[in-house]
């Protein structure tokens, strides 16, 4: 979703126009749009008085930023050490079977995005995944089916 000009201005002006604010600014834009639209990166760099190449280097460096639109539900599967040894690959295969998405991909309806992250900081309940802001621990294949079925049901009710 691309923001209206006034909304973007409003969002930018929460921060002083200084380069050291850049990370926070990009995080806010991503929070609101679900990804970082190119025109917003350009606008933000201008506001922060930061060369565009450096803004671009920054947003391509951090994995949590996405330059492409993502799905309504972003599924972040943890592939940190603990989850890795608890066979996160099996859970990813499971997601692939259901959604036909590899990590980094978004379905064509813009509903789901699957990503892997390096650690969600919840190793005690590994393997873990996060759907938008909700954590799901001790994942099993059954649990994944249930979670996705719930989300599908929710979407169907709305439609």
């Amino acid at each position: 979703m691309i923001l209206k000009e006034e909304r973007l201005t409003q969002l930018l002006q929460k921060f002083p126009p200084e380069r050291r604010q850049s990370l926070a600014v990009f995080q806010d834009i991503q929070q609101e749009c679900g990804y970082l639209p190119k025109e917003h990166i350009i606008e933000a760099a201008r506001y922060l008085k930061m060369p565009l190449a450096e803004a671009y280097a920054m947003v391509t460096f951090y994995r949590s930023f996405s330059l492409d639109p993502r799905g309504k539900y972003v599924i972040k599967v943890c592939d940190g050490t603990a989850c890795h040894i608890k066979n996160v690959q099996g859970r990813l295969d499971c997601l692939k079977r259901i959604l036909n998405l590899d990590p980094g991909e978004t379905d064509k309806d813009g509903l789901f995005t699957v990503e892997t992250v390096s650690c969600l900081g919840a190793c005690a309940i590994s393997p873990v995944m996060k759907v938008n802001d909700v954590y799901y621990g001790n994942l099993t294949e059954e649990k994944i089916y249930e979670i996705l079925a719930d989300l599908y049901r929710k979407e169907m009710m709305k439609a």
Partner: protein
Amino acid sequence: MNIVIDGKTCEARPGEYLWDTARRNGIDIPALCRHDALPGRGCCRLCIVENENAVGSRSVIVSCVFPVTEGLKIHTRSEKIIRFRRILLKLLIERAPQAEGVLLDYCREYGVAGNGELFNDNTNEKCILCNRCSRACQELGNSAIQVTQRGIDKIVASPFNEPSPDCIGCAACARVCPTGAIACTDTREQRTIWNKTFEMVKCAECGKPFATAEELEWMKPKILDFESNLAYCPRCRGRHVANSAMV
């Protein structure tokens, strides 16, 4: 203060880095991320040397970022250092088998060759990610290119891989690149670099193209007496300045 490099007593200045002390005293240490216009960064590791302490034990240090202190005893070409440099060069040339320029010269000097087989046959690469280009661009005040992405996907690029609005076509990046990785094509009329094409400005005297229009525009506010100074190419300009000084 004095330090000893390869058995030779060298005069060192406080605040200086070891690499520069060596150079001033006629001892060349190979360097890739350091350039005369850009301070060392400690990222290519090619300038490593051995530092011998009072009891004779040695440690490997990075000379381009090592501040000199009184009484250092340095070995720049010990058997161990040569061995380490060969490994470093091997890794670099395997990463960038198409590299030319300084990197290739060092590889020849150290008897190292590579074709990219070590790293998934990535045989078209020239860049070793030393950052010289992006730092040169930054120093000049444009920052039109940067090292983007991360990990194995790292690549030097203009924003969104499109012609950069900040690029003035000065080609400083191509000039400082130690591997000839930046494509810059010049004709009499035009220069193309980073997917952007610039018109060349010709010297008012000899007619040689010497800068892009954008480059001169960029220099304008910074140069006194712009018209008479920047209408000519560097060579003719020198002559003009000399002539005008004589009358």
